[in-house]
């Protein structure tokens, strides 16, 4: 396989005394979609933001085309940002209410492509509005004049204006109606296929992740618990937490307690221990390391082998 676009190694984030992410490592290849799954408070959004240096990172490496983004100065980082774009969860609050859709899409061009003539800029904006299914008449309208799904199309269009190489999508459909979610997921799917972008797609909804992802990464309380190709993860999940998430998505309540509030300290030993139906005394010792249990399939569970048989 070719060299990954993005290599994340032992990434950690702490907010004060709270460890939000610890030892997260994964690769992302060009044109690939990696689904990132976990409950509220698991650190999904923090991971997305840490990759783009939108939150301070406490340790590890984020290698973008081999260059550690965490070591870049502001000017270099700014250059990388052209290739690294993000779509946020709440479509309305992530758009400036006092700018028209046209002005919102013009902003990335006026920062990174200053040589562009006004006419060419307008052509690019019109083409992108058409591409995301809004039509160029949308350029003159303000965010409040659009529905939630349309606002998310503007957010996606803004992220796509500079032809990024990596698109980070942080719960892009969670605040939309079920009937509209499919439209947005399909738009992202088409954009990825047409432009060959790589995508990190974050969602707590496994059914949505299943449509888009090539591989899926599951995190729990800031720790990576499983990563596997899509079909493996959905057909033969190994980690008890992944199994619980899948059951919940099919309407079965996760038997163990709910996710703890974020101010509850992480237990010693395996982070999932207090909710796990398969725990043993040994699980109290330390957080298990990620180990390969199959092709491209890593699990952080002491009992992974037992659970597979």
């Amino acid at each position: 396989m070719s060299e990954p676009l993005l290599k994340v190694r032992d990434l950690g984030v702490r907010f004060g005394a709270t460890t939000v992410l610890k030892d997260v490592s994964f690769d992302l290849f060009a044109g690939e979609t990696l689904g990132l799954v976990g409950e509220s408070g698991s650190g999904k959004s923090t991971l997305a933001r840490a990759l783009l240096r939108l939150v301070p990172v406490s340790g590890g490496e984020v290698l973008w085309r081999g260059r550690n983004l965490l070591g870049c100065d502001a000017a270099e980082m700014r250059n990388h940002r052209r290739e690294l774009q993000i779509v946020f969860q709440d479509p309305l609050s992530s758009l400036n209410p006092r700018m028209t859709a046209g002005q919102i899409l013009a902003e990335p061009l006026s920062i990174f492509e200053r040589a562009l003539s006004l006419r060419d800029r307008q052509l690019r904006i019109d083409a992108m509005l058409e591409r995301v299914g809004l039509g160029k008449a949308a350029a003159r309208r303000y965010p409040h004049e659009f529905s939630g799904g349309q606002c998310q199309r503007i957010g996606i269009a803004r992220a796509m204006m500079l032809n990024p190489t990596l698109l980070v999508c942080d719960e892009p459909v969670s605040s939309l109606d079920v009937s509209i979610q499919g439209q947005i997921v399909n738009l992202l799917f088409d954009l990825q296929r047409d432009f060959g972008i790589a995508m990190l797609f974050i969602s707590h909804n496994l059914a949505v992740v299943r449509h888009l992802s090539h591989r899926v990464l599951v995190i729990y309380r800031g720790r990576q618990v499983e990563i596997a190709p899509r079909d493996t993860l959905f057909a033969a999940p190994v980690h008890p937490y992944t199994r619980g998430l899948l059951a919940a998505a099919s309407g079965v309540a996760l038997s163990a307690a709910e996710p703890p509030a974020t101010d509850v300290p992480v237990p010693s030993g395996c982070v999932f221990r207090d909710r796990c139906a398969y725990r043993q005394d040994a699980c109290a010792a330390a957080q298990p390391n990620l180990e390969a249990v199959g092709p491209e399939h890593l699990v952080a569970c002491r009992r992974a082998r037992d659970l597979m048989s």
Partner: protein
Amino acid sequence: MPEVLRIEQLTIDFLSAERIAAVREVSLQVSPGECLGIVGESGSGKSQTFMGALGLLPRSARATGSVRFEGREILDAPRAVLNKIRGSRLSMVFQDPMSSLTPHLRIGTQLAEVLVCHRGMSWRESELAALRMLDRVRVPESKRRLRQYPHQLSGGMRQRVMIAMGLLCEPALMIADEPTTALDVTVQAQIIDLLRTLRHEYGTAFVLISHDLAVVGGLADRILVMYAGRVVESAAARDLLRRPRHPYTAELLRCVPDLSGPPLERMPSLPGQPPDAAQPAAGCEFAPRCPFAVELCRAQRPPLRRLGPGEVACHFPLPS
């Protein structure tokens, strides 16, 4: 048996710069102990119907029609009358449990207050009742929780507290507006389970409002589907989920994300946008997005009429 709630021909307009028709001639009934599901997209008027019925709309709204709760007309009833009913006989659980709880009051105080206000109980007695109720909605370590503040609880716990608060006065009807939408998938299933259990324990009637047919389908006895402020279909939940008669209901069902079957690369979706309430159409409001629409649909609005065991507003209902 008389209905707990009977809404007739409820119409709500917002009078701002333009007249916005939020709810149009909605009629529905809820029987004692029944769970009625209300399904629709954002802006379909599903929440506004009940906000209107409870007198919770802003001043710019005008509601006409009739809302009878336990036999008594409450539309435009004086505030004093509504305040007695709301929170005691009729309670509401909202989507976002964080913004529905007061951030600077302990959980125990907020729960006990309900009984102090509505039942005239002492704070001491009320706190004890609150503690018992937290146990019933399965909040672990209930004693400790009473002394905590909302921000110290997880989203699912907060929603349990809201449900406990709603049940304290043993209401005849609880209206839950998107109670699981802001929660994780893992917690959603637990809250639905909890509501199901509580229904049987208390015999409370429920109205469950959601954009997600899967959530409503798991709990409701009857389902009412709203589109552009109108009821477009209503039927027993089983019939509606198995054999939807309105094309909109069928499309909504098709969009429910599913983990069974082979992974599809394209997700099913409903094309187009929800209609603009400021610009009502002459014909069927769903026609622009309907795969079966013909000229008649665009020219003439189909009335809601009985069809088999349910009701549907469509010129060409799907075969049963």
